[in-house]
Each structure stands twice: as structure tokens, then as C-alpha cells.
């Protein structure tokens, strides 16, 4: 599903050029659950941004679902992204002005799904994630765990092939964290590919494979299953 080869990304300021990704090559197969670990600044987040088509690499190749996407313009990236990829963030990133229902509905709106279908699918997902009773609440009225559930619901509502999770448990206590990890595992079991960046060895153990990064390239891979 994902094949990146010799991927490069630099950040430039006037004085300094920082290499974020240095000839990184990784492959993720469909249905895999991969955890990416490494110290701060090793390029995990940059990798995730490129995988999520939020950022463009400066060099190398990125084949997504058999298509070379490096060099795609913003419009094409956005189009591919909204159809195929769901995101879960450490800080949930829900829109404060929208209710739970409306937040989850958002990806469907951008995918031009009809209102009746949207309602059905959002309710299905909320039901699955056991937050149906919170559907008319605003994010600030929810606990962190509940907010992350909503974020997960939003990530999966469009049935994406790939979910990218950026430290999904970072802002949660351990019991809420475990619940979220459980959710991701269940999604993976149903066939969704997951790439998760994490600092937590505990969370990483939910995955099939751990990629460890340092200074912009992968150092080791532990296969857990």
C-alpha cells in the first residue's frame, strides 16, 4: 500500500538547513499495523505528514496504492487524502464550534456524500464507538477520552484505507489510552491499515511491526507478529 524510497525532506531557515528525512525507505503492506518510534526530532512527524499527503517530499519516491504521489499539487493531494486517509491526533483537533455529530460528519461533507447517507453513517460510527449519547455535545463538554473517540470516529467515518495516528494516547490517562488503542486494533482487524507514531512502548506493542527512527532514517525494525 505504501512504498517510499530514498525519501528526503529539508527545512530551511535563513541560516540553517535541517534535514528531517534522510533517504528514508519504508514499505507498509495493506492491512498492516505499524508503529513508528524514535526520539524527538528524528523525523517521525515529518514522515507522517508526508504519508498523510499534508506535506510534499523534497526528494525520493512515494508510491501510494500503486500511484507515484511525490510532486502532486495541493489540489490533487487533497483529493486523494479525503478519499483514502483518516487522521487521529494527539491533541484531538476537533472543531470547537461544531457538535460531536457535525465534527464526525465533516469528512463526508467534503466527499460530497448526500445528507441522508451522512446521517446514517455518522450514527453508525458513533454507535460503534459508544458515543452516540454525546452526539449533540460540543468538544469542550467532553472528557479527553471521549474527545479522542470522536476524533477516531471522524477518522474512520469515511472508511479510509489508511489511518495515520500521531501519538493518539499522548494526552490521555492510561485507561482511556488503552481504550483508544483497543479501538485502533479493532479497526485494523477489520482491514484498515494503520501507521501510528508513538513514544510509548506499551502502545507500540499493539502493532505488528515497530519502525525505529533516528536522525531522519530508519534504524531497526522489530517484527512483533
Amino acid at each position, binding site marked *: 500500500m505504501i512504498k517510499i524510497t530514498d525519501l528526503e525532506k529539508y527545512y530551511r531557515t535563513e541560516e540553517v538547513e535541517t534535514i528531517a528525512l534522510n533517504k528514508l525507505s519504508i514499505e507498509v503492506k495493506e492491512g498492516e499495523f505499524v508503529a513508528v518510534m524514535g526520539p524527538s526530532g528524528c523525523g517521525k*512527524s515529518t514522515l507522517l505528514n508526508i504519508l498523510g499527503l499534508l*506535506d510534499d517530499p523534497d526528494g525520493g519516491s512515494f508510491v501510494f496504492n500503486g500511484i507515484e504521489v511525490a510532486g502532486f499539487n495541493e489540489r490533487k493531494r*487533497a483529493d486523494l*487524502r479525503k478519499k483514502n486517509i483518516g487522521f487521529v491526533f494527539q491533541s484531538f*483537533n476537533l*472543531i470547537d464550534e461544531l457538535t460531536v455529530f457535525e465534527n464526525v460528519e*465533516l469528512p463526508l*461533507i*467534503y466527499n460530497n456524500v448526500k445528507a441522508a447517507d451522512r446521517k446514517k453513517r455518522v450514527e453508525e460510527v458513533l454507535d460503534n464507538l459508544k458515543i452516540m449519547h454525546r452526539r449533540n455535545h460540543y468538544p469542550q463538554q467532553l472528557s479527553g477520552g471521549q474527545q479522542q473517540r470522536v476524533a477516531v470516529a471522524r477518522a474512520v467515518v469515511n472508511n479510509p484505507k489508511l489511518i495515520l495516528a500521531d501519538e493518539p494516547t499522548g494526552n490521555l490517562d492510561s485507561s482511556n489510552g488503552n481504550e483508544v488503542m483497543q479501538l485502533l486494533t479493532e479497526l485494523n482487524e477489520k482491514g484498515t491499515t494503520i501507521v501510528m507514531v508513538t513514544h510509548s512502548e506499551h502502545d507500540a506493542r499493539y502493532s505488528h511491526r515497530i519502525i525505529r527512527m533516528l536522525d531522519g532514517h530508519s534504524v531497526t525494525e522489530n517484527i512483533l507478529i
Partner: protein
Amino acid sequence: MIKNFFKVAFRNLLRNKGFSFINISGLAIGMASAVLIMLWIQNETSYDQFHEKKDRIYEAWNKAEFSGKLQCWNTTPKILARSMEKDIPEIERSVRVNWPSNFLFSIGDKRLTVKGNIVDTGFLQMFSFPLVKGDPKTALNDGSSIVLTQTLAKKIFGEEDAMGKIIKIDNKDNFTVTGIAKDLPNNTRFNFEYLIPWNYLVRTGGDDSSWGNNSTRTYALLKPGVSIDAANGKLKSIKYQYTKDNDDKKWEMFLYPASRWRLYSNFTNGKEDGGLIDFVKLFAVIALFILLIACINFMNLSTARSEKRAKEVGIRKVVGAQKQSLVSQFIGESVFLAFIAGIFAIIIVQLALPAFGELTDKKLFVDYTDYKFWIYAIGFVFFTGIMAGSYPAFFLSSFNPSKVLKGTFKSANALITPRKLLVVLQFTFAIILIICTTIVKQQIDHARDRESGYAKDNLVYHYLTGDLEKNYELVKDELLSSGIAKSVTKTSAPLTQGWSDSWGFNWEGKPADDKTDFDRYVADENLGATAGLTFIKGRDFDLKKFPTDSSAMIINESAAKVMNFKDPIGQIVKDDDRPYHIVGLIKDFILQSPYYPTKPMIIEGAKNGWFSVMHIKLNGANNTADNLKRMEVIFKKYNTEYPFDCKFVDLEYAAKFKTEERTGTLAAIFAALTIFISCLGLFGLATYMAENRIKEIGVRKVLGASVTGITTLLSKDFLKLVMISFVIASPVAWWMMHQWLQDYPYRVAIQWQVFAFAGLLTFFISLLTVSYQSIKAAIANPVKSLRTE
């Protein structure tokens, strides 16, 4: 999707009440001001453009040279109309309109004074003043027919049908109502409540065939398709063709199109030189600026709080939003906001219209039943929304989601450059307006403080209506003997108005080429005593002691200078061929504009006979209201048919400042609005700035910064901008006011103190605005701000 945008917009609005209030109130005030100004502009630019034949309607003008300068004016000889029709084949018809005249109408026991015009019969066929009753082609054909406006007809006859009713005019002639005209619109130069045919003037001896008496307005309707240049070519030398007088050889006449009457008819040296159009343009600019300033608030506040919206932008992009969809979302939001502001603006306009109408001396109104108004209104809302929203929309939608969602995004906590620029623009405009307001006010005060040259207190006048002229001596005796008046005089015009001027005087030693124009005034006796004039030499007219004073003359200092008399007393001055001997020399007094130097003036004795007004110096020992009441009784006794209508000279004199006062008031209002809207924006910016820097402030305080230090730190940036604005505004304002003052020969000097005042005022108002937020941020407990996160 639109529903979703709408929801977010609406909830944002409710959540950020302060922000919404600042934006909506600013935009509403800005929009309302713009709408009011546009109403005024619309009115001014549509003057006399509703006549069906407007493209063929012209007014005849003179162009002639006086003291080396070409003058243009639009009063013409009465004989011109018929001569023009005869000689110039391009002209289909020509119509004269006499000066508006006040006539006494008597209908049964009812008496009222009404203003209207005496016109040629073709008037209603040339101009589109539709009749509700009667036929415009024939209504004025009969010499004793009269056309009334609907309002006047209703005032006189109530619900009864006015057609065919008889009205007695000036207690002499009976007229039959032959037409009822719709009331005049508010955008015409004409101002009549009745029309009567020219024939009346012929019957009463008011018509003449002199080419030298420029006393009426003449209009021409060209035939369809003919060339105006051809018509003008033939009209040019018409006066000389008839008079064959060498003085008239260079005298020109021309036709001036209806489309230019209202806005362009200011002539300098024979050429159009601005006019009302300058004001129209100026106000259009002001309207646009006030709106722009309100929009700038929106731009600044939207971009200042971008951190807040950045997250939403990031999320929307992550779930698949294109940039373009975000741009339309944000523009949609500002249009939505503009729409709400627009509703408030309509309310404000409605509330402000009466006051604005008074200020502009117009009856302005919004025609809500006109679909065009709503089209314009919606267009205006979109225009405002897009103007305010496009910059923030592009700014916000360009955020990179990978940065904002990770929390690494921090909008620059200092004022970024475009925002600085916008604040400078706002305050530049505000400071310019403050300076202009102050100088206009100074100029008015300057002219008002000018010595008028006569005593206005307790001085009243009354027109010699009806039998007053006949009974003048009786009225005068009774006023004096009853102790109401101290002194009474009969004159040719009110003391506040110059009605006559002439260059046709002769005196010993007058240079042959002298064409100096003198103000001409006539009085019987006691003018000096009544008006409180200052005599330098000689004496007042006194017919009892000196019966020959009926051919005496009083001149002012300027006249004595022109005539170059060593001792003017006893000299003979001829008006045409009538000799007058000078008995008095007075100090100049202001007869006309307090902004112009006084002209040379001659006052002729009673022999001249042009009396229209009596001036009365009331006895100040009595109560004024009491004086007036007793006066009315006397006037009623000797002038039974006419209403008593006494005017105060000091009030009339004060009215000379009306135009300038209006300019001043408008400038003051716009200045206040601009400052208010700009400060609203500044307040909002300061709020967000304080919020953004809360951590920095905390750290500084922990490290030992004082409250004063922090307040200064936070306010400094803003005040710097105000100072830059001042530097830009001062020369612009100076230039503008310098230009404006050129219209007033008697004017104030522009003083540096005005600029200092405007600068300091703006500085303190903005300091007050900003420091509230700065102090609040500075005195907050740092423990709180540092604990967050």
C-alpha cells in the same frame, strides 16, 4: 456544505461576542454612513434629470467682461426668449421663468402667502412636472389661469376639488385653477407651489423689452437631432444684433445643458470650474473611506485572531477541504457578517435620516418599495463583505495544516506589516478629519467675530407688503409714539442682503475706463440711527431738517477711496443722470458675505424710490415678545390683508454662516465616527495582542518587570503607529485646508497649534483605548498565565 459553513459562522459569532460586536457595530456604522452619503450623492446627481426632454433642455447664460475678467451668469433679458425663438431655427420653444415671488392668496376668508413662479405658457410642456388634473398643453394658456401643487390645493381647499375654483392674488386679480400638479420631487432646481402665466406680468407692468435688464431665467428646448453648437453659434452675438451698442459687441450668450446645471455651473473667467461636483466627489471619497475603515477592523481582527481559526483550517484541510473551498467559506462568513451589519445599518439610516436631512437641508428618504433599492442593498452587502473578507480569507486559508495541527504554529505576536499599514491608514484619515474640523470651525469663528459695522441687536425688518408702503408714515409714527421703536427707516433691501449693484456712477475726476462695481442701497432717513452705523464725517439723512436730503447720498470709506475724494462731503455723484450730493461718510459695514472684503457702497436718498423693506430698532427697555405683540397690532391695523412677518437681523446675519457650519458639522461627525470605528478596531487588536503575549508578560513579571514597564511595552507599538499616521496626515490636511480657505478672501491663517491639538487628541484617545488592555494584562497574576498549558 453551506449549511455547515453557516453553522460555524453563526456559532463563531455567538462565541466571540466581543469580536462580533466590534465588527458588526463598526461595519453597521460604516455602512450606514456610506448609505447616507450615497443617498445625498444620488440626490445631487439626479437634479433635473427626470425631465423626459432633459437632453434637449438648455438654459441661456451671459458671458461678458468686467474689470478684465469674464463673468458668466444666468439671468437674462425678458426679451431674449421670443427673440431666440424667432432667430434660431434649432430652438423648438423657449420659456421664461421669473424669480420666485411671494403672493398673498385670498380664498374667502383664508389668507396665505405662497411662493411660486410666473412662467411662459410652454413651461409644463418643456419640463416634466406631471398634472394630476388638467392638461399641461393648455393649463397655462389663459392669462388668469393658475396651476397649484397637490399640497397647496389640499391646504387651501381641503378634500374639495380645486379645479375651477377662484383664487384672488394680491387683493387684486382673480385666477381660476386650471391644473393640479404633482408635488415637486426633491431633486429639482425649481421650487414653486403655484404657476401663473407670464401674461400676468405683462398686465401688471412687470414685463419689459430692454436688453439691458437681466432679470429673468430663460430656458430653451432644442428640436430633436439638431446641433447645440449650431444653436450656440447663432445665439452668441444676439444682444449686439439687437442693440447695435458698441459696449455689447463682445457680449456673448450661450445655452447651457440641463445635465450640468446642478453640479458644474461654477464659472471662472468664462470656463466651467468645478462646483458642487467637487463636494460630490469629496463625499464619495469620504463614504468609501469610512466603509474601508470599518472593513479594516474586520481584516485586522480576523487576522489577529488567526491562531484561533488556524486549527479549524488545519482540520478542514486534513479531512479534504481545498483551499478554494476555505476561501469561499471565509468570504461567505464576512458576507454573512456584513448582512447582519447591513440590517443594523438600515435601522441606523432610518433613525439618522431626519437629522441628516436637516443637516443637508434636503428631504431625503429611502424608497423601500423600490426593487432597485433592494438590489443595490444586496449588492452593497456583498461588496462590503468581499472587501472586508477577502484578505483574511486568503490569509487564513493558506495555513499549512501540518504546522498548525502540531501546535508549532504561532501567529506572529507582534503586529505584522499589513495590519500595521491598515491601522496607519485608519488613523491618518481620522487625524485629517480632526484637523479639517478644527480649521473649518476656526474659519467660521473668525468670520463671526468680524466687526459687522452695525448694531444687530433689537433690529428687525419687515417687507413693505400690501398697504404698508402707502401707510408707512402712519405705521412709523405709531411705532415711535407708542415707545415700541426707537428709530425707523425705509430701505431698498434688508441690511443683510445686497439687492442692487451698478457700475453706472459718475463723479468728478472719474477715469474713463473705470468700471468699479458699487453696492447700491436706498434709505429715506435715520438709517444711521436705526442700524447704528458709524459716521466718520457728515451726518445721517434727515428729511425734516433738510428736505433736500431726498437727493442726498451717504458713501462708505471704500467708495470714498475709489472716488478719490479728499473731502467727500458736498461732492456730487450721478447715478445714470440723477445727481446726488454726499452728506455723510460711514465706515464700511458687511452687507453681503462676511468672508469677503466689503465693497464700495453708496446709499441714495428717498428720491430713488425703490423701497421694499422697513427696518425698526426696537426699544430695548421693553420685553421683545411684548414689543412684537404690540407691533403686530399696529401692522394689522394698517395692513389688514397681509400676515405680520417680522424678521430679526441678527438671526438673518447668523444664517450667513449656515453653509460653512454645515461643512463643519459634517466634518466633525465624520471625524468622530472615524475615530470611534478606528478605536473599536484598536481595542480589539490590543485585546488579542494582550492575549497572545500573556506568557511573555508572565515571564517578564517573574523576572521583575514593573506594571508601568509592561503597560508601556504593550502600548508602545500601537502609539508608534498613531504617530506615523500623524506625520502622514499633517501635510495632507494642511494642503486640503489651504485649498479650501482659498475660497474665502477673509480667512484664518492655518496655525501649527491645530495640528498639535489633533495629534495629541488622537494620541490620548488611542492611549486610552489601548492602555485598558495593556494595564489589565500587566496587573494580571503571572502565576495564572504561566500555569496554563
